[in-house]
């Protein structure tokens, strides 16, 4: 997928080395473009506590979807009493329609690795694991090559960068369903156990891999850390929005003129990204699905929402996997949201009742809308069931699985009403044949 160029005023942090020849495979080329200077600097002149403070004051927030402040997470892990700690980089990229993390790991494996090393140094972990989707063979190969090259230069290993402590990084290939991207499931998979989430709290920063304090961060979050260490936290805090500084990768696809991946400062509005970089929709814009399969549909009126964690969730969507899929007028949102709910139900682990039965009932109700088998009260039932699922959910999959139907009903209520009350599909996609009510 093409890497798109934003306006010149947008800083390039994550994809800065994407255009440097050889930076992806050759450590010398990567170092020539600035790789590993942050780790050299930190090992020589910063204590682990100072690294944590740098990351905290930079305001960096997790790009895995939750937006949890990274500095606070590291602090919590470092403060928990234990002799052993782990750092896990989440490169699983659960959304089957996203390739942002893959692009990052393939174009700049050294940035990811250096971020992992800095995180491990900050929380005094001696072992770090990069968990990568087993379908990403190129990324796995390049990360392993980067580890070998860094070990032979003494940046990692028994006496990493002459800090006197050891630091080993390993790549693990994982295969699984959508829920495997969730952090507790990812840890269970790394422990060779059943792929089901655990209740939080206790958070992985207290009870993580093999019961030890563990930092789990998205690879994109970690790749920003070397830049912060090298350029200072105030430089990073000055980029993007006040509540969520820095840049993030966004993938544009669907009915858009220029699909591709672009690095966007947080706080930019969706409209600026879709029209400015994506060249606008190919047909008549209807909705943008923001955040992957469990994201929300935003109508044209909501396009001035800035890309940020709080702003998007207020609008009903999530930053999630970082994908924005544009749907034009030929699509039926009732059909789409029902299908996405069904997908999420299929990918759910089945550990808890809201997961196993709640999402299934939600998918059945959604399907009922499309086939004309719904009752007038079903819209209210979807709303109340969704609220119950969100309240009772064990993991983030269920909590966000309600998004497609809820945002659909919130912004495209007329379309839902047409299906439920009149048995017609304005887009002509579904055939909601109204079955004559037999008994009342």
């Amino acid at each position, binding site marked *: 997928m093409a890497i798109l160029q934003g306006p010149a005023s947008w800083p390039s942090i994550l994809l800065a080395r994407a255009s440097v020849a050889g930076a992806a495979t050759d450590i010398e080329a990567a170092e020539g473009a600035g790789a590993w200077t942050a780790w050299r600097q930190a090992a020589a002149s910063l204590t682990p506590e100072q690294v944590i403070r740098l990351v905290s004051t930079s305001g960096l927030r997790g790009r895995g979807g939750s937006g949890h402040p990274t500095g606070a997470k590291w602090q919590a892990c470092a403060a928990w009493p234990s002799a052993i700690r782990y750092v896990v980089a989440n490169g699983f990229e659960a959304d089957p*329609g996203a390739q942002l993390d893959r692009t990052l790991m393939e174009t700049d494996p050294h940035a990811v690795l250096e971020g992992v090393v800095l995180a491990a140094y900050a929380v005094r972990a001696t072992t770090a694991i990069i968990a990568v989707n087993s379908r990403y063979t190129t990324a796995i190969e390049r990360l392993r090559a980067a580890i070998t090259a860094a070990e032979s230069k003494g940046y990692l290993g028994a006496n990493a960068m002459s800090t006197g402590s050891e630091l080993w990084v390993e790549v693990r290939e994982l295969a699984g369903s959508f829920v495997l991207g969730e952090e507790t499931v990812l840890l269970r998979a790394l422990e060779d156990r059943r792929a089901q989430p655990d209740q939080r709290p206790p958070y992985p920063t207290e009870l993580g891999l093999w019961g030890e304090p563990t930092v789990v961060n998205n690879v994109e979050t970690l790749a920003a850390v070397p830049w912060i260490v090298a350029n200072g936290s105030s430089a990073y805090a000055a980029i993007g929005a006040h509540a969520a500084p820095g840049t993030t990768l966004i*993938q544009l696809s*669907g009915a858009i003129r220029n699909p591709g991946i672009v690095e966007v400062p947080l706080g930019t509005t969706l409209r600026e990204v879709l029209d400015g970089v994506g060249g606008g929709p190919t047909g008549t814009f209807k909705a943008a*699905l923001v955040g992957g399969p469990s994201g929300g549909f935003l109508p044209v009126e909501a396009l001035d929402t800035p890309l940020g964690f709080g702003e998007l969730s207020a609008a009903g969507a999530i930053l999630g996997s970082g994908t924005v899929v544009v*749907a034009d007028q030929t699509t039926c949102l009732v059909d789409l949201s029902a299908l*996405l709910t069904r*997908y999420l139900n299929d990918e759910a682990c089945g550990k808890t009742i809201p997961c196993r039965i709640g999402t299934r009932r939600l998918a059945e109700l959604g399907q009922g809308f499309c086939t004309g088998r719904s009752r007038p009260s079903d819209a209210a039932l979807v709303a109340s069931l969704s609220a119950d699922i969100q309240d009772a959910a064990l993991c983030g999959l269920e909590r966000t699985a309600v998004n497609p139907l809820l945002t659909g009903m919130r912004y495209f209520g007329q379309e839902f009403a047409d299906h439920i009350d009149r048995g017609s599909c304005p887009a002509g996609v579904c055939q909601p044949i109204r079955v004559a009510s037999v008994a009342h």
Partner: protein
Amino acid sequence: YAERREESALRRSGRTVPDATFEPFARIDLGPVDAILARHGHRPRAALRIMDDVQAEYGHLPVAALQHIAHQTGAWYSELYGMATSYPHLRFETPGSHVVAICRCAQCTVAGGGRVLAAFRQHLGTDIGGLSPDGAVRLESTDCRGESAGVPRVTVDGNVLPTVNATDAATIAAALRATVPQGQAA
């Protein structure tokens, strides 16, 4: 829960239920499993990696191998079985002669993937991760990673189809099932 209902209705109907998962109880040559177990030090903590390797060796995860892993590592069979069922890429049945894979990402769904999947479900008589009752075709998931433009990503034996709709899906399913004579599969 809905599929359970379907399954028990099928069982109550009195017809013989095709259940490929009973086949692999047949004995297999356990030599390769022993080699894999030795490579991982017979550790229950490497169970997922052991199962991955066994599947790479046999093309599927024979239940006999699972029993052997339980005996040799000391892990409970139920624990291993539960684990194997929680990973969609691990399968107990032989792969089948053909594989149809479909992407379910948001973009493929926008492009009409839902109807194509429904058609495959109906005409192959199975769901994602399953084998058609005659053992001819396996339905799997694939990832397009946002690459498919306007067409849901479907691959047949690894080849991407340039276009596909629900009608095509029915034709493809019928054609694939016809290439394998009844009763000779697996």
